[in-house]
């Protein structure tokens, strides 16, 4: 893993305010997305982060996560 499981959970938690408010920010530019679309977008971003986090760094599947947590 590229980051520890604890750090991954924290990243996902911190992402939530950005996902919630991304919809509001887009509306300033006249782009309206529905709650469902917002949820799907959030799920895709979370999935991408999870894949990035669990992907072995430099192709080394046995690599230890950075840091000791």
């Amino acid at each position: 893993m590229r980051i520890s499981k604890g750090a991954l959970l924290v990243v996902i938690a911190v992402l939530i305010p950005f996902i919630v408010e991304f919809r509001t920010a887009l509306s300033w530019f006249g782009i309206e997305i529905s709650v469902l679309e917002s949820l799907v977008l959030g799920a895709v971003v979370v999935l991408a982060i999870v894949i990035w986090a669990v992907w072995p760094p430099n192709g080394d599947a046995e690599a230890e996560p950075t840091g000791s947590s």
Partner: protein
Amino acid sequence: MRNAYVDQFPAEAKVIKAAFWSSFLALAIGGSLGLLQALHRTDVLRIMEAPDYYTVLTAHGVLLAITFTIFFLVGIFTWGVTTSLDRGLVDLRFTWGWYAMMVVGTVLVGVSILGGVVDAIPMNADVLFTFYAPLQPHPAFYVGLVLFVVGTWLAGADWFRTWLAWRSDNPDERIPLPTFMALTTTLFWYLCTLGVALSILLLLLPWSLGIVDSVNPLLTRTLFWYFGHAVVYFWLMPAYMLWYVMLPKLSGGKLFSDPLARVVFVLFLLLSTPTGIHHQYLDPGIAEGYKFIAMTNTMFLLLPSLLTAFTVVASMEHGARQRGGTGYLGWLKALPWRDPVFTGMALAGLMFAAAGFSGMINAGMNINYLVHNTWWIVGHFHLTVGTAVALTFMAAAYWFIPQVTGKELWNRSLGLVQVLVWFVGMTFMSNAMHRSGLFGVPRRTAEPQYENFAFEPAAGSMGEINAQVALGATLLTVSLALFLLNMVMTSLGGSSDEIPDNTYAETLSGPEDAPVVLDNLKLWTAIATVLVIFAYTLPLASIIDAGGLFGPGIDGFQLAIEAGPAFVLESVREVIA
């Protein structure tokens, strides 16, 4: 050999444990009532009558903003003073005395509020956290508040006595940082509570007892906010203390600067109190010039908060680099995110940054008019006291309860989940509250659904806002239940040898680098007093001059209403008359 706090100070550990559990009990009751309110307001679930909402709101505010926070912080400061001075309190009977006084005060206040929904209790105190006249509670409410506050005064005296005893043995030593923080906080607490004590003892209590016929509502409001803003810093300073003395250690490093930490606490001593009028921008009867002075003082308060953000983040970065972290931002990965104590405090600090931004809007005289008395304000203080303070305290409890009981934390992973669920729940709830305030959704209202009128959000719908609040409040309640479960199970567990030593962060730049004048508590108290005199003498004189000390014939009004047709008819008749 184990060297936890309970091994070093077994008698003090018992007091701290009692204070923590008093705090958790208030948190459990007050937090659960919060869910009831959120579901009622958003019309998701209504199991109480509208008038009872105000009883519940009063209990929620008082139990969480006063009882939960202050019981916990007296425990924290007692730990900080005894640990950093490496000596026990001077007289444990005195210590148990102030704790008992706080408990009696809490019971009186709690029972008088409970009377709003329990017919068998012949009392009523539906006056909300701010107890603005002419709303009038039973005298027991005021007596309880006074006892509670006097209990905290005696707690402060206990810390000062212990420090003075230490100083006579160590005349040339600098005040250790945690003790310095506890003492400076206590000093501004004395200064600010003087206002509310005068208001209650000389004006409100005699009024509720019928000794005087009337009060001046603007005067009692102003005296409330004289205390009411500084109390925010009374809650926050222990959280700041934990960020300064615990987070660097948990990160694996040292506190970046002891002198900077002392400067921050001195600034809070100076500036916490002469700012209260910024809560009264919309109050008629206070001249704009006084409000402008309060705004200026408030903006100065951003400085110590920004200094804290810098110092704490620099300390965390130092710790992360000691743990092997590298890069401009890559060091963040090296922090101990699996530790609920660290993660809870770090997320609380992050939320506090957001609270600082909304606080700047509250503090600005012109833009405050947009959000005054709206749900924005509620969103704001759920980020400050509801997260920066509450989440820090809950995270700290995962370290402190093992320290004062000698028992290992029951479930660390559950602790991590708990702090994350709190963060996510508060994101939903406070975010929606802030947004709804921008389009005028009022606060302190049981049922803000009106006929022939619809709120118009800039984006989304009112239904989504309500859904976010209900979801957030539910997540917060789940988080609260997980926290209490962990605390109960930890306390039921057996003694363990695996408790970490009772220590706090060392410093990169220590007290020897701090100017000696920073430790001159008399000087800073004198300056703080002068600033308060400058900020308040003329406004108070003007209020008394205009409305009199006891006001222009203001009768008390008790909210124990019965929402039947007879009451409505009577109200209409009174309005017409």
